[in-house]
């Protein structure tokens, strides 16, 4: 009896690992934008929702091949990220941080409501079923495995971009000292615009991976938005390594908590854990 008990616990832990990879990818975009531009996109999850709808419509309604639909969606959300920055963020770039939070909150309302208007409240399923992968007594959804792999790939690609390319170095530089960037000949506005597009692209990638596993509906942002924020704050806002670690820790709480109690209690436990950590390390585990 304890044998089976352990194996299913192990399965939960491993699923938590897979979930952690996905969370890590989601948190990257948010952390990148905050680390560079110093703004939290409260509507980040809603951007992901747009990407999910993009994949759904392109693939299911217009019969585009799945990978093409996904690539296009990444592009669409990258554009949305850029647009968000130019239209909404730029005017309040020098205002109080709360104004920036609130203005992206307004966009959150707008995107959710617009999605309801345009797409309706029904849950939409991509209709792509991937088989389960069996490992001994445990089974894992192939969608989860693919998502994990792609997420890790995204993380590595971002890391290489930031450390090996000129533009990536400029992005890291601007997050360390914004004021002297003009002395390097760099127009900060252009780097911000690029970072926003990159943040959008990461959200778009997250959307592709999420839509494989979950149905999309206008309020889906509420399901993983708060979690993404908390993970970023847990790891230290703006700290990508911290967010990466926090994602896996958080996911474990959800998976194991959900294993011992019901699924939602797993989330409750994770959130309470977050609040507790905030009291111990108010700036996040790896925060400054």
């Amino acid at each position, binding site marked *: 009896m304890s044998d089976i008990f352990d194996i299913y616990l192990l399965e939960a832990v491993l699923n938590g690992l897979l979930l952690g990879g996905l969370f890590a990818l989601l948190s990257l975009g948010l952390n990148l934008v905050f680390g560079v531009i110093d703004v*939290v996109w409260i509507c980040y999850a809603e951007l992901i929702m747009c990407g999910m709808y993009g994949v759904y419509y392109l693939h299911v309604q217009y019969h585009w091949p799945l990978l093409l639909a996904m690539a296009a969606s990444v592009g669409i959300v990258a554009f949305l990220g850029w647009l968000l920055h130019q239209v*909404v963020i730029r*005017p*309040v770039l020098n*205002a*109080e*941080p*709360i*104004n920036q*939070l*609130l*203005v992206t*909150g*307004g*966009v*959150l*309302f*707008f*995107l*959710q*409501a*617009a999605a*309801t*208007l345009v797409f309706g*409240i029904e849950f939409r399923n991509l209709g792509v079923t991937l088989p389960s992968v069996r490992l001994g007594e445990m089974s894992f959804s192939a969608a989860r495995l693919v998502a994990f792999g792609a997420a890790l790939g995204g993380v590595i690609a971002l890391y290489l971009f930031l450390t090996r390319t000129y533009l990536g170095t400029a992005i890291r530089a601007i997050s360390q000292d914004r004021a002297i960037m003009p002395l390097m000949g760099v127009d900060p506005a252009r780097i911000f615009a690029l970072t926003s597009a990159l943040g959008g692209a990461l959200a778009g990638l997250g959307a592709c991976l999420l839509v494989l596993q979950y149905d999309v509906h*206008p309020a889906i942002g*509420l399901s993983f*938005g*708060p979690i993404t*924020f*908390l993970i970023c*704050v847990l790891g230290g*806002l703006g700290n990508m390594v911290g967010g990466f670690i926090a994602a896996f820790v958080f996911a474990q709480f959800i998976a194991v908590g959900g294993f011992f109690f*019901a699924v*939602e*209690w797993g*989330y*409750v436990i994770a*959130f*309470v854990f*977050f*609040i507790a950590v*905030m*009291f111990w390390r*108010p*700036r996040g585990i790896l925060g400054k």
Partner: protein
Amino acid sequence: MNYPLHLAILVLLWGYIYTSWSVMGRLGLVSFGHGAFMGIGAYTVVMLWNYYGISPWLGALAALAFSAVVALVIGYPCFRFRIVGHYFALVTLALSEVARLVITAWRDTTGGSLGATPLGALHEGASISLAAMQFSDKRIWLAIVAACWALGLWVWHRVDRSMARLALQAISEEEEAAASIGIHVTRAKLRITLISALMTCLGGVLYAQYQLYVNPDAVSGIAISLQMVFGVIAGGMFVMLGPTVGAGFTLLLAEGLRLAFGNRYPALDTTIYGVMLVLFIIYMPKGILGAALELWRRRPIGQTFRT
């Protein structure tokens, strides 16, 4: 006759709830977690009534006590460790989500996301049940809500006047300096948070008893918390009647659109609302009333957010 009464009640009720939030918000303590307090208020009275027959009047006291504990448990470490700005907003966001998740997860008791209804107490055509705090005559509700709203304004006014306001303004601008002249930062912040939380909790109680239906997404969670913040921003955070104007504005917008378009375009009001809020933050951060008053008096009102 009922419909305009209904609208008036809603405007005053939400005006009161938004005012409760702004007691904290205008002093730089921008919370995204007030959904937790409203949820506690709403669900505590309904659950105690439905399962234990405890009158909502007493249930309200229990809810207030519960809210006070939560406010102190979360507030104390936040203020002691100087969690401000983004971090404070996100911690409070986590709080409201915890509330929503707990309510949803505990579905056997609370009904989960389907919501819950207080057991009816108005039998055989009775229109008043004092013990159950249920009144079918909307005029009674109007009186109750109006009294509460006036109370909220009075509290806002008192907080505004008192030392606490000066202290907190000093704090929000220069924490170290304020601390050095003996203004006990943490205690002052906690007091304001407590007041705000208790007021919001009461709003939740009234909401549950008036609407006779609660569900976790309507009274707790990030959506309702954001709605409170926005209502205050739209109306004007630094003016006493600002939150009420905000409530009136959003309700009338929703109703106006409903009358114009019927139910053909659900969520059209929120779509427009979202756009307007973006525009408000960018162009009119002092809100409708704040901007109007500034124009009229030709001098600046309050200050922009400082956390």
